[in-house]
């Protein structure tokens, strides 16, 4: 039995200890905003927040998050920074296919929570773990910058 705190709600889930958080979110809880891309922490589409920091849920056994706060794309808009980033994403028309954008947004929000005035270098450092096959990087940079300079 895993006691999880997801998006502010407590859940008792009877899932195997070693099941990655990603699949608990997607296939057990139906929170499909967090995506699967590689399963080896190389693409970042599965990024969620663990106690406010960006982590890759595909390589995170659910037992490792017991008692810690998990936030997913479905709830990140409840935070001021999350809302600002989502708006910036639309204002800058970042999205193409959109599949990686949940992960991109989660990484961007974690960055801006830690460094509200993130500079170009910090943006690149924080975002380079997130792949986008549509290669929307030009607009991701612009969107994050618009928030960090606001």
């Amino acid at each position: 039995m895993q006691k999880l705190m997801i998006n502010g709600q407590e859940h008792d889930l009877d899932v195997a200890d070693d099941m990655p958080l990603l699949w608990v979110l997607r296939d057990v809880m139906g929170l499909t905003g967090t995506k699967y891309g590689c399963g080896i922490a190389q693409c970042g589409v599965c990024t969620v927040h663990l106690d406010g920091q960006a982590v890759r849920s595909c390589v995170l056994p659910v037992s490792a998050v017991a008692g810690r706060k998990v936030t997913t794309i479905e709830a990140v808009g409840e935070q001021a920074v999350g809302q600002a980033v989502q708006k910036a994403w639309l204002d800058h028309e970042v999205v193409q296919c959109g599949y990686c954008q949940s992960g991109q947004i989660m990484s961007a929000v974690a960055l801006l929570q830690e460094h509200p005035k993130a500079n170009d270098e910090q943006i690149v450092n924080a975002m380079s773990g997130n792949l986008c096959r549509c290669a929307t990087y030009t607009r991701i940079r612009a969107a994050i910058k618009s928030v960090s300079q606001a």
Partner: protein
Amino acid sequence: MNVFNTALGLVAGLLASTVYASDTPAMSKGEYLTRAADCVACHVVPGGKPYAGGLEFKLPFGSLYSPNITPDKETGIGNWTDDEFVDALQKGVGKDGKHYYPAFPYTSYTQMSREDILAIKGYLFSLEPVKQMPPENKISFPFNQRWGMMFWNAIFASNERFVPDSKQSAEWNRGAYLVQGPGHCGECHTPRNIFQAMSTGNSLAGAELGNWMAYNISSDAKYGIGAWPDDAIVSYLSKGYAAGFGGAGGPMGDAVEHSLRYLDPADLKAIAVYLKSTPARSEGIPRPSMAVNDSALQKGLGQKLFNDTCVACHQIDGSGRQSPAGGLAGLKTVNDPKGRNVMATLLEGHTPTAAQVDQRMPDFARSYSDAELAAVSTFVLRRFGQSDGEVKAEDVAKNRASALH
């Protein structure tokens, strides 16, 4: 959550309660010892049938192939008598009277009692026979003259059983037996002399093993494992890592995967107790402090690559925020001035099948250049270690070309 999700959750839940790992029946003594001796580590090829052998050992003087030790009468050991099997493990002499090369650790197995050895035989003979002939050994002259091993054995192999030390606790004695006998730890962790024999005066002081470094595991607090709490050692041996102390990669990762994780926690604790009583050897790579070096953070290829592909698990502070298994700070690996295990892990990855997802790491050999892997290795050494280490592109090229197996 909709009805369907709830139903899914229930199904997953119901099935999860029958945990499949614990389904395994209690292990027989023979199987336990076979695990402890890690026979399968050498007697299998990747993707092959366990114990059917065929693994190539590239040694300085040629290639050896591990034999088939399944009970197949033609290609395996199905025709072996008890005495023949005991002689193989205690004296390094095969059924045909030929001497083994000490790639086969009979120099350690000789410590095992006849009873324990026969328990192993019993287990091996309970397995399904596999018909598979290993390739011929390719050893260059004079090393292909096996009779020469007689002299080597006379000097370096003791052919003596383990004798408990009555002044020590039962736990200590159990640990000593496991380390010196079936566990054959010294085969990798004790430096070898010019005759390829374990150096007795320098036991467990650490040694190079192909692209890998088997660290000093003597009781020395700085260079060995003397400062590791017992439970850190147990965690390392059973899970493959001990946050802030060490992570088992390469051949040691295999040892955990195939052998150590199957041992009773009490036996692992006994190993810890024994290792911490061994003579301290002050050589090799000292443990680094947990401090990270911010001056290493400057624009550069190494940091770029670390941010691209490593930081998601290891984190820029080396804390492995993702999970303790991803922690880099405090590991000897980041303090090796030559960065051997950093390089080897990048080239070979870390993908034991039993490891949890947070312990797995893909290899980066195929799509990253020598210069890139050297740069990221150097960044890791400078950022998390204090040895001012450096890995050069030539080092990566050399290690890329050679591999232990």
